[in-house]
């Protein structure tokens, strides 16, 4: 199967690219082909330390590692994270920026992020259809679109379901199971999948309820490229239609 992926992102107002805490994979736009394609998007939690890096590790581990079940992906990421954390204090010392008292507790508490992983699998040879499956922890959302219609919205399907404390994947295994949700369906050639972090996803679902076609508006904004997309997001924020948060849209067109 073949798909084209393109990603657009923007940090919250007043923040630079280094402060952007969403993460997505693959990082490079373009065509992908293979019997099974994976895409992922995660949103690092504002209140935890190193959460952008943790989000990045999660999406890379899902897309680039062996095609494991999500539990294995998350535990594998924790294993890598904990090893990296052992050498982190020395790295900071070497960089002339030793760890401060206020970071010690944050590092011990772990990093946190939402996670959304999507897998598209080929159908039979020559077939125009195949299967998709998705796993999610938290409020990073997947929208499945076909010919201008919204077929699926996962894991949230109402704007009112977003909260300030969504389920998160912790870098620490704290005994509580990950609150993983799963969904699956079929794709047809020409379908589009949009993955979005919470501010954009909420705007999208609010628009859908209001009877607008937010996917058309979003598709135009995405197709216009980074600068017009940023302008479009700024406008939504200034009109208070969209929360001022990191925004990421990953669009996957099935070819």
């Amino acid at each position: 199967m073949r798909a084209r992926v393109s990603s657009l992102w923007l940090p919250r107002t007043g923040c630079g690219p280094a402060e952007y805490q969403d993460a997505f994979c693959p990082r490079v736009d373009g065509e992908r082909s293979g019997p099974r394609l994976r895409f992922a998007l995660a949103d690092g939690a504002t209140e935890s330390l190193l959460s952008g890096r943790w989000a990045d590790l999660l999406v890379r581990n899902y897309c680039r590692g062996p095609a494991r079940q999500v539990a294995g992906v998350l535990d594998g990421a924790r294993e890598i994270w904990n090893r990296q954390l052992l050498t982190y204090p020395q790295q900071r010392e070497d960089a002339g920026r030793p760890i401060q008292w206020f970071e010690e507790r944050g590092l011990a508490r772990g990093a946190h992020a939402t996670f959304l992983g999507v897998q598209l699998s080929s159908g039979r040879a020559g077939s125009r259809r195949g299967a998709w499956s998705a796993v999610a922890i938290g409020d990073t959302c997947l929208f499945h679109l076909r010919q201008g219609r919204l077929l699926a919205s996962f894991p949230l399907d109402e704007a009112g379901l977003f909260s300030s404390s969504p389920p998160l994947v912790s870098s620490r295994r704290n005994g509580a199971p990950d609150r993983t949700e799963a969904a699956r369906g079929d794709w047809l050639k020409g379908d589009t999948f949009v993955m979005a972090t919470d501010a954009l996803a909420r705007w999208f679902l609010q628009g859908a309820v209001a009877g607008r076609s937010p996917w058309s508006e979003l598709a135009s904004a995405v197709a216009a490229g980074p600068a017009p997309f940023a302008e479009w997001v700024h406008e939504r924020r200034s009109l208070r239609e969209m929360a001022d948060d990191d925004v990421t849209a990953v669009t996957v067109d099935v070819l």
Partner: protein
Amino acid sequence: MSYTAEISRANPTCFVFLIDQSLSMSDPIGGAAVPMRKADAVAEAINGFLSELCVKCAKEDGVRDYFHVAVIGYGAEVGPAFRGGLAGRWLVPLSEVAAAPYRLEERVPVPVATMTAPGATGLAGGLSGQVAQAIAERPVRVPVWFEPTAFGDTPMRAALAGAHAIVREWLAVHPGCFPPIVLNITDGESTDGDPAPIASDIQELVSADGPVLLFNLHLSEDRSDPIAFPPEQFRLPDDFARKLFSMSSRLPEHMRAMARQQGLTLEQGARGFVFNADASSVVQFLDIGTQVLNVR
């Protein structure tokens, strides 16, 4: 809707703590696990609160100035209560608070039930769990900015006037901020006149996101049950309690939601007021009374 403004470095808000440092604060507080003076319990709660706020606002590049903080003591005198490098400073950006504790005490954290839950399987239950455990058990440095003090009278009116001046000046520069929150912790009646008019002046200050919030906590040494966040029609025991109640703002909905999460059932119209507070209700008061939404 009020109390929904996003808090960011571009649009920060402020907390002003007023701490009674009168002589009677050297009396023991009720409800402490080990005997403790009221002044000690308050100092521990304020230091703990500031420490937690710094941790929550910490990023790889340092502590972000989502908040500015003032701690004003009132007893023998009225003035800023920070010690060390921040001595004499009224309102301080959080990054500067984080950078200049008076001292750091090294403590080994209390072990927590952690990573290797019984029956845990997979990588995280093995070596990774041990590694994470080792990280969690590293000694941590605990900051102290504010020392317990108990000497003199209770000039609450002057302390509230100080808070009023700080907040008014803040709002002139930050008119769109999440409304500043003033938290007054006392164990007795004002000795410099009626504090109600200046309390009312504070509550009349507004940002574009709503009126400034003033919350009051009364500390007790007796064993009476604390009265936490009472509603309008609640029958309070005496005039002093009714005075402090009348000086306290209603809790916004998001703070009541937070209180519900902590197992408190608060009625509509509940005020940010605690009477006969013991050691644990000081911590709870700070926790609920400084709750904000939308920190970006």
